[in-house]
């Protein structure tokens, strides 16, 4: 018996396989099979029978059609009397009609055979109906309709309709994200229309958490995560998806450090986790990790350098393609990402095609950016500015002879130049006489100019965005296709951008067991931004330097309103910069950067249901990004002309753009760019591959124990390359002919610079992971995960490259307990706790010795040779940066109205990489090693409520609050003063990751009005040595990163109108005010209104902390000290970073169904959105300075105030 059983089992198994094979084969034959069936069924018959038996009728049909019927002759119904007539009707229809009133049915077989069998005993009922939303009465496409207890079911189509053939008496389950699941028993009626009620519990959150590896039922998910539906957070007019996260998810802080298209905001999930690392979250799109095109750390984002524009991972995504965003926050949620998850993971799901007839959606956004205005900034008007200049003139600062030798100058310099040069020999007259009267008359025009630079340089730009989405599908295959076009003609006269995106996604169910998906998307961007070169830090004087900065925002803020853009005749008026003529309007047209970006991604998914419990999944993706940054500097630009300014010996010796030739040691520097301009090009390329194999095993024991096991393996490969090439002497107006003076190349080589170069990085990751989730009766959930990661980033050593990470967590669904059942007020209540290790690769790659090639810094060309230096000694102790995280969470719903999620976490960061000073004996005096420690903790809170739902008025409200505080507990770095006082702050033991420190201001000198400080030696004085290591006398101001961030969203809905008011806020941080003070001002500088309160006479120091403009004698006495720069970094120049911002106000009108009934549109809406309109609260000391924005020049612009009209149509 046993043996037989065993044998039977075996046979069964083989049979099973055969069935499987057949099914696959069947699938392959489907198109062919359909064709065959088509011909067979198209057989038409004409027949007219009256009062015959069914048997007789069948005989008649046999004759007529040539088909043979098979049936059991004992069927009683064969003897029933029927009458039937048919006029050239399909055979199948006729037979159907014939057997309609009998208990028989028919089936076509191959070879012109038809079998007649008994109908199933139970009646099948064809149910159909429409599903609408209980609140908005809109039809709901994509609702899951399933037969309870089975896997059978369907999805509603675009009109919310469904049809399903079911047995009588079964229960249909209607479920849809955000709505209460509804069950209906099928009795006799065949039309079941359902209005689904909004689920208060899931007001903000959906019931499934996508981790990128698994789709977990929220009730069984033990980690901390936020899932946001794209429709809830989409802000019309905002293109970059990452900006939409601001204030939406607790624990996620988003700072818009620059608003320029393509520049990523500074995003941190639960604060910084590394001292020297990038601190960037991992982006995952459709289960595939999205690699950055260039590695830009959060700190680099604030530089305003051109490469920040290719820093956003998601700038190529069309926001309309996004279905949902899930932010995985704690160690349990991110566990499956193991050694890359330390900074959190943001998982994006894009839209899939839906079952039903093709649905076309169109979204059109039409925006305008509002010009900035001087009303918001405290900048002197031209009259006040001119009076400051006249004080400077009195103090001997704008004197005639010195001014004519200066590299930069405004109206005074121009006046002196005219006086010097304007003698007209023919008329024997001066254009301008050097008399006080004539001078005053000359300056009068400028004093009254009051130039509005914002008005000249900014536009109320027109931005349009069109997005077309097409969704279509059957049970077996779904397609989603979208295309979008974005065009911004520029907020300033120096920038514009347009972008196309394309997205095609198909999902195919080949059989019950096999499904397959293919996604291709691409985007192309063409962007123009003002020409700029990389920012440099001048640590000697304490300031940032950027030569030839023509950032319109910075220009408008820093340029005197006395200057005019046009002269009296309406022509462009030039002043002097770098000894060469300069006009901003001219310069932005002749000195610009063209950025081209092409991004292509291809992804394939495959899954195979091996058994009922076991599923195999495969994901493979490849992405290719090419970017080109062309900095074009035309010959007429100031930047090119500056290289040619050599009129006088003073200029020749002062112009740093000339070349001092050591072969002619006694000669003045010479021009090395005699013709043309620059064509400087930089190319960044990235290609990444991703492969994943995964097995899921999901089993239910005794209906109470549920065990899910996942195991898999993945491989990632990223190749990046950057190359640059600087073209000197490119002649834009001569068809691009290059005219290069060899001396400019010689100059570069002698200065140890190369005029072209290429570098690459190659990242390889291999990982193995496994996780198990056990739940008992959906009440107690336990989860554990282990993962092993390997990377080449640490270098060649085989021991350092592998790292295991792990995690354990549990959840308790309290509401399922018997004692909670009676508490009606509580809808659900879950407690969670988790603990685990996550990691990240730090910025050190020397697990084996790192050699780097270079050239020797020797002054003479013939002495220069290649050299290899040891960049990093072998460090056998090198490992990954790690953290242990404890998370305790609570999520609950009350009264069907309020949902609450609260998480508390502690993080213990260790093995962080930081630089430490060593004995030097090994040959590396400062080493980056894993030794630093940090602790952080925080709270994430989000509350969602339905405040009011009465008489058609519905008011829902969402409040998000995040708190995060970090403290470095072990750090032996040796920061210098300038490392700590600049706007980005610095790291020091006992303080947050980025702390802002100030030079301690000690009032103004009573005699000179020059600021005094506590200097690097602890004494009061004017001379603070910014490179000093004595940082103990600095004053700690606070963290640079806010400790509190969040948002508050309110939605009011009345009939077809809805209004959303969304506020974001942050607090707890300090901001360094823009550097406004200098020891010597030129007649170009714009001055803030504080200058009106400046120290002028002794005694003023009692009332004013604004330093004097030093006269020549005081200036000379300053020598090589920089008290004014120190003042910019003093405790006087700090503001509180707290603000509340009116992020968006959006008013939407949905056209009601009755208005649309006659049209082809199934849905239409129109909305008006105001973005970033104003600050409700901010520190007054900011005087209009945006608390999020770092005014760093270059390509950085603040996030503009914006008004968007948006149209949405569904066809």
């Amino acid at each position: 018996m046993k043996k037989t059983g065993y044998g039977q089992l075996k046979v069964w198994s083989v049979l099973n396989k055969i069935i499987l094979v057949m099914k696959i084969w069947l699938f392959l034959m489907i198109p062919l099979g359909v064709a065959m069936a088509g011909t067979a069924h198209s057989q038409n018959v004409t027949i007219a029978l009256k009062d015959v038996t069914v048997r007789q009728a069948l005989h008649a049909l046999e004759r007529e059609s040539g088909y043979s019927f098979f049936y059991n002759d004992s069927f009683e119904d064969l003897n029933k009397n029927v009458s039937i007539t048919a006029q050239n009707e399909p055979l199948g229809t006729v037979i159907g009609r014939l057997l309609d009133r009998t208990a028989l049915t028919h089936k076509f077989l191959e070879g012109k055979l038809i079998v007649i069998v008994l109908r199933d005993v139970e009646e099948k009922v064809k149910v159909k109906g429409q599903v609408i939303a209980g609140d908005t009465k809109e039809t709901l496409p994509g609702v899951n309709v399933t037969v309870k207890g089975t896997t059978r079911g369907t999805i509603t189509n675009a009109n919310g309709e469904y049809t399903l053939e079911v047995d009588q008496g079964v229960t249909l389950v209607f479920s849809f994200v955000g709505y209460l699941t509804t069950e209906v028993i099928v009795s006799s009626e065949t039309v079941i229309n359902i209005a689904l009620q909004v689920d208060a519990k899931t007001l903000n959150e959906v019931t499934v958490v996508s981790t990128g590896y698994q789709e977990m039922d929220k009730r069984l998910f033990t980690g901390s995560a936020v899932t946001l539906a794209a429709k809830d957070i989409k802000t019309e007019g905002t293109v970059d998806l990452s900006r939409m996260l601001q204030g939406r998810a607790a624990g996620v802080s988003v700072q818009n450090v620059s608003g320029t298209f393509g520049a990523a905001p500074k995003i941190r999930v639960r604060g910084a986790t590394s001292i020297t690392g990038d601190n960037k979250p991992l982006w995952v799109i459709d289960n595939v990790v999205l690699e950055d095109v260039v590695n830009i750390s959060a700190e680099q984002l604030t530089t305003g350098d051109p490469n920040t524009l290719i820093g956003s991972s998601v700038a190529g995504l069309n926001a309309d393609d996004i279905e949902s965003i899930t932010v995985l926050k704690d160690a349990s949620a991110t566990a499956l990402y193991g050694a890359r998850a330390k900074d959190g993971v943001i998982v994006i799901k894009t839209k899939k095609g839906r079952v039903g007839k093709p649905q076309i959606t169109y979204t059109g956004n039409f925006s305008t950016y509002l010009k900035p205005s001087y009303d918001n900034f405290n900048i002197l008007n031209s009259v006040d500015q001119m009076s400051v200049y006249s004080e400077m003139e009195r103090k001997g600062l704008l004197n005639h002879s010195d001014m004519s030798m200066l590299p930069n100058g405004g109206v005074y310099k121009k006046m002196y130049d005219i006086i010097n040069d304007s003698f007209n020999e023919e008329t024997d007259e001066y254009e301008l006489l050097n008399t006080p009267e004539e001078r005053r008359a000359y300056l009068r025009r400028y004093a009254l100019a009051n130039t509005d630079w914002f008005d000249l340089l900014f536009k109320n730009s027109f931005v349009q965005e069109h997005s077309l989405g097409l969704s279509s599908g059957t049970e077996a295959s779904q397609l989603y296709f979208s295309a979008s076009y974005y065009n911004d003609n520029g907020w300033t006269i120096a920038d514009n951008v347009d972008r196309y995106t394309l997205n095609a996604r198909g999902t195919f169910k080949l059989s019950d067991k096999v499904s397959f998906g293919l996604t291709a998307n691409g985007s192309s961007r063409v962007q123009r931004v003002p020409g700029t070169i990389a920012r440099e830090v001048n640590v000697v004087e304490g300031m940032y330097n950027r030569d030839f900065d023509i950032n319109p925002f910075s220009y408008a803020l820093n340029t005197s309103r006395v200057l005019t853009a046009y002269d009296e005749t309406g022509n462009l008026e030039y002043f002097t910069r770098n000894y060469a003529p300069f006009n901003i309007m001219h310069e932005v047209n002749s000195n610009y950067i063209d950025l081209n970006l092409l991004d292509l991604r291809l992804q394939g998914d495959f899954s195979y249901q091996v058994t009922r419990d076991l599923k195999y999944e495969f994901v493979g993706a490849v992405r290719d990004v090419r970017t080109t940054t062309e900095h074009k500097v035309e010959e007429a630009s100031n930047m090119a002309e500056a290289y040619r300014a050599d009129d006088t010996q003073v200029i020749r010796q002062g112009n740093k753009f000339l070349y001092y030739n050591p072969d002619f040691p006694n000669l003045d520097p010479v021009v090395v760019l005699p013709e043309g301009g620059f064509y400087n090009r930089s190319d960044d390329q990235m290609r990444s591959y991703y492969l994943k194999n995964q097995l899921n095993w999901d089993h239910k024991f005794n209906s109470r124990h549920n065990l899910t096991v996942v195991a898999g393996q993945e491989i990632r490969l990223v190749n990046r390359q950057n190359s640059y090439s600087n073209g000197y002497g490119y002649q834009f107006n001569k068809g691009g002919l290059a005219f290069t003076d060899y001396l400019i190349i010689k100059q570069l080589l002698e200065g140890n610079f190369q005029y072209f170069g290429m570098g690459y990085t190659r990242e390889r990751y291999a990982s193995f992971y496994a996780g198990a989730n056990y739940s008992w009766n959906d009440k107690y959930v336990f989860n554990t995960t282990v993962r092993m990661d390997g990377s080449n980033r640490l270098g060649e050593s085989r021991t350092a490259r592998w790292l295991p990470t792990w995690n354990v967590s549990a959840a308790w669904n309290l509401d399922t307990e018997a004692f909670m059942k009676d508490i009606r007020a509580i809808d659900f209540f879950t407690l969670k706790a988790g603990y685990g290790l996550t990691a990240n690769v730090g910025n050190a790659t020397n697990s084996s010795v790192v050699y780097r090639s270079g050239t020797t810094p020797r002054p003479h060309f013939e002495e220069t040779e290649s050299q290899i230096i040891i960049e990093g000694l072998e460090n056998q102790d090198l490992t990954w940066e790690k953290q242990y995280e404890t998370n305790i969470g609570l999520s609950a719903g009350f009264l069907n109205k309020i949902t609450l999620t609260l998480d508390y976490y502690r993080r213990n960061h260790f093995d962080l990489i930081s630089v430490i000073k060593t004995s030097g004996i090994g040959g590396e005096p400062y080493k980056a090693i894993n030794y630093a420690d940090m602790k952080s903790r925080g709270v994430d809170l989000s509350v969602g409520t339905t405040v009011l739902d009465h008489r058609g008025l519905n008011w829902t409200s969402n409040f998000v609050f995040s708190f995060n505080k970090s403290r470095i507990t072990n750090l032996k770095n040796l920061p210098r003063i300038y490392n700590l006082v600049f706007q980005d702050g610095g790291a020091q033991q006992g303080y947050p990751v980025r702390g802002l420190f100030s030079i301690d201001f000690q009032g103004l000198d009573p005699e000179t009005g020059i600021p005094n400080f506590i200097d690097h030696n602890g004494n009061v004085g004017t001379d603070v040595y910014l490179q000093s290591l004595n940082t103990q006398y600095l004053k700690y101001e606070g963290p640079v990163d806010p400790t509190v961030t969040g948002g508050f969203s309110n939605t009011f809905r009345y009939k077809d109108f809805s209004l959303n008011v969304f506020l974001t806020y942050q607090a707890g941080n300090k901001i360094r005010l823009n550097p406004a003070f200098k020891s010597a001002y030129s007649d170009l500088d714009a001055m803030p209104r504080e200058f009106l309160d400046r120290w002028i006479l002794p005694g003023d120091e009692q009332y004013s902390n604004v330093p004097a403009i030093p006269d020549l004698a005081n200036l000379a006495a300053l020598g090589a000290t920089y008290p004014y720069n120190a003042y910019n970094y003093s405790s006087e120049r700090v503001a509180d970073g707290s603000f509340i911002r009116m992020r968006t106000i959006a008013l939407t009108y949905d056209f009601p169904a009755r208005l649309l009934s006659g049209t082809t549109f199934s849905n239409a809406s129109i909305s008006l959105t105001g973005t970033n309109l104003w600050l409700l609260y901010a520190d007054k000391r900011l005087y209009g300075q945006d608390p999020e924005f770092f005014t760093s020049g270059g390509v950085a612009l603040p996030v503009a105030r914006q008004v968007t009209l948006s149209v949405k149509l569904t066809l």
Partner: protein
Amino acid sequence: MHLLFKYKTMTKKIHTLLFLSMITISGCNEFLSETPDNRAKLDSKEKIAELLVSAYPEANYIPFCEAMSDNVEDNFGGTQDVTNADPYFWRDGAATWQDSPEFYWNGCYTAIAAANHALRAIEQSEDPAFFNAQKGEALLARAYTHFMLVNLFAHTYNTQTSDTDPGIPYVTDPETVSLKTYERKTVQYVYEMIEKDLTEGLPLINDQEYGGDGNNASNIARFHFTRAAAHAFASRFYLFKRDYDKVIEHANWVLNGNDISSAMRPWTSTYRTYTTNELSIAYTRSTEKANLLLCETQSDWGSTFRSFRYSTGAGRIDEITIQNNPAADHYAYSSYYTNTGIYFIYKFRQHFVRIGTNSTTGYPYTILPLFTVEEVLLNRAEAYAMQTQFHEALDEINVFISNRVLNYNPEIHDVTFNRLYNLYQENDNKKAIVRAILELRRIEFLHEGLRWFDILRHRIPVTHTTHDGQVMELRPDDPRRILQIPAEAISVGGLEPNPR
């Protein structure tokens, strides 16, 4: 039964999985061995040679050696900086940046690490003999850097106490852990190690290897241990070790077959015609034959040698060029002075390596002559004198003087015993001649730091006077003659500090 079957298929599946993952893991290590960026690999002779370009310390010992010596005085009004003031007052400075003792310590050990990595690569190669020339250079560079360190950071060599005086770590292996401790051993040990490397490396040196087929081979060779440079180093080493036969032997190698006068710096001819710019370029350029070994250093000395407060002034110039001048006439050196009273010979020039093509900030570099023909000549003269070969010594001195005074006339300018007696009031001929040689070295190597080593070797007391009249003396046994070991070398590296 059902379960059993499942179990069997599952174990089978697990086995397959294990097998597959084994393959993938071993494949993984291959996959993960990809170098992460365009770092260099030491896989050829050329690249080992390139690594040795960084086996010379990119740091400058002159600023503090000069400020500690008796070449300088307080020129009130000059530029103030701790890297100048601390050594003038023989204080243990806290400065760690360019031109500080710690920076030089770090620079030397960084150079040593490059030499050691090159030697390790040669050792591990299939045919180490193929890399003999590189091995020679690495050994010489390693010996030289340790030599400079031991003389600055430990007791000066002497036959009585060097076997117990603590030395400095003589590093021969690449460091491979994040933080490692070292030991000082003895000065004797360090000298033995230097001699071992020197004698092993010197015969391996091959001048043909520097530059190879390039046109500028000779220019580049001046930045490497050529045979001549190696022998020059040997002559200095044995002079410190008081092994005078060897000094002469190695000096002969450098000087023989050369017309010494034409190999020396042309102070009396070409240099006289130069402007300051031209002189500052020529002095440390590879085309200058007298330069046997040049080295670029990250140092501000190219501008500070003529601006520091504690530098050569009127008093010292008078002492050096008039009072103690054995040549009985003015030297041909063209010197200048500033309004703060600083006297200088325009020997150096700052090479400013900017952080961006046109930035105003960057790192200053100064090219140093590490070994010159003049030093070798004077080393040999001193060795002759120490061996009481006084005539040979005087001949050397006079060759030197003939190239340093204008319109040289042996009758007037040649040094005689008599003149030396009158000048230095010294009866002992040996002492008088050595004194003359030291004075010649003092002026010849002014601003070049070598005076400090003469002070150490000959236990010369140094007196420093401040602007306000305070007088400080550094006696021959003063512990402050030995620089303090850098703080982290004590705390992290585990070294014993020098007594204070």
